[in-house]
């Protein structure tokens, strides 16, 4: 499932980021890459951005981008 489908407060492990090289490397630079554990903090109404916690940083990600981050929920 994707990050957008996680419930707020739910945690999981990133399996893959499906997107172009640019997107994959931008997300990786922010610490979001396969193998990392993340916690979903919140999502917004109307397909707004998703906020996740990775290590000790919180990152806001647009809905489209977030839907291409595949996770395995705990």
């Amino acid at each position, binding site marked *: 499932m994707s990050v957008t489908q996680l419930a707020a407060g739910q945690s999981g492990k990133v399996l893959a980021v499906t997107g172009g090289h640019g997107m994959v*490397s931008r997300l*990786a630079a922010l*610490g979001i890459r396969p193998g990392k554990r993340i916690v979903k*903090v919140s999502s917004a109404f109307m397909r*707004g*951005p998703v906020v996740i916690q990775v290590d000790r940083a*919180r*990152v*806001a990600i*647009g809905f489209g981008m977030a839907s291409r981050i595949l996770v395995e929920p705990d």
Partner: protein
Amino acid sequence: MRILLMGNPNVGKSVVFSRLTGVHVISSNYPGTTVGYSRGFGKIGDQQVEIIDAPGTYTLEPTCEAERIALKLLETGDVVVNVVDATNLERNLYLTLQLLERNVPVVVALNMWDDTKHRGIHIDLDRLREMLGVPVIPTVALTGEGIRQVVESIPSAASLDVPPRSSDERWVTVGHIVEQAQQVTHRHHTWLERLADASVRPLTGGIIALAVLAGTFVLIRLIGESLIGYVVDPLFDTLWAPVILRIHELMGPGILHDIVVGEIAGGEVDFVESFGLLTSGLYVPFGMVLPYILSFYLVLGLLEDVGYLPRLAVLMDTVMHRLGLHGYAIIPTLLGLGCNVPGILATRILESKRERFVAATLISIAVPCAALQAMVFGLVGERGVEYVAIVYGTLFAVWILLGIVLRRAVRGFTPELLIEIPPYRLPAWSSLVQKLWMRARGFVVEAVPIILGAIVAINLLYAVGVFDAIADVTAPVVTTVLGLPKEAVVALTIGFLRKDVALGMMGPLSLTSGQLVVGSVVLAMSFPCIATFVVLLRELGVRDMLKATALMLAAAIVVGGLLNLVL
């Protein structure tokens, strides 16, 4: 020797820079505060060295203008001081490895060291030094801890001859280093963290945002009004007015008198309407505008340093996409409410050319600067709060509508929001006051000379009769479409120099309240002031700047005309 400060966004590079050089630069708690670079000089032993504060970047593969600037700077540095957020070691070390592969001497400043303790992070410094092969110094830039040791280790920094790695290899290495050098113990969330998360959730976040915005407005108004009512006005009225009257008597009539003290009727000084150098020339900047500059930037500084702004960006993202922007564009827009110039510069944090054009154009058209707003409060506010509300409501509607139009009309794409949200921090008062002082001084140093020059020019041009000529030529548009007396053209023209003086010039025209509203709105929307004009030209290039300007004039006339019909 040239020393470069590099690191991820929002790790405190600008604070380290201020510590090293004694040169104060704006630092805030959100990624992307520094979009250009600052240069200063420091001393290492007896040697004078140049120090550069680069914009923050996550990798050496740039994604926006600010990051491109950082990359270009890297090629010019002799030594890099890599400022690292000690509480986010893993992510920060990726850039460190990239820097090491560039074979440039690196010193790592492990900043926010104090935060690691109460966040349950234990870093084995010796192990980290050994694995990276470069000096690693724990620092707390805000208090200055460790800065001396950073300086001392610069001369011995050497480049390492690290072969280039692929990004996967780099992450593996980073993972390896972190595993060996860092231990994290679990601990409970603090109340600041709970509040931080509540402010991005849709429901609680919305309530918090409304409370913050309402509080901001009330606070700015309260502080500004109090400064004017209890400090500035009494000073001008009791101390300065008698001096002016004395000068008035001594000088006698003539053009010089008009330039120096302006028009004085009935033995009373009207600081707003007299338009002399020593009357309006001082009262407009210091009596009307500066109090609001101080209150606006105090409150903005608080929001910046607490770290609230990126959260507002998250909440506003969906709305901003309708304007062809993403949520982070709210930060340049808010900065534009202080002064359009830093606002437009801050659009460098946006990734695409389209977004930068849309954001910069919207700021220059629909976002009034603090100086103009202060005059609106002062002059339009006298006629009633409802008129102030009409001015703001109109500009807000223009911002939305024009954004919707631009989104459809401007080609290109708007990337999705992707930002790091910093933790809430309690602001350090010393840096808050420092920042306020810099911004207020910026206004006094840059704006006041232009205001004084504008007043001299206005008086001279009046005397020569140039304004009558301009007024006659443009009269049809101004009188029929906008419903303003033709003398208002003069004020609108002066708007190119300074908007605050320009609105001040509408004071003596005995306009109706409706006309004053039209005048304020047209002034806000039409031609940008000269400083904004120069920045637009530099940031957008000639073609886009001309487009933006044409749009401005058209929008100003249309909206002004509509308001004239309604009011």
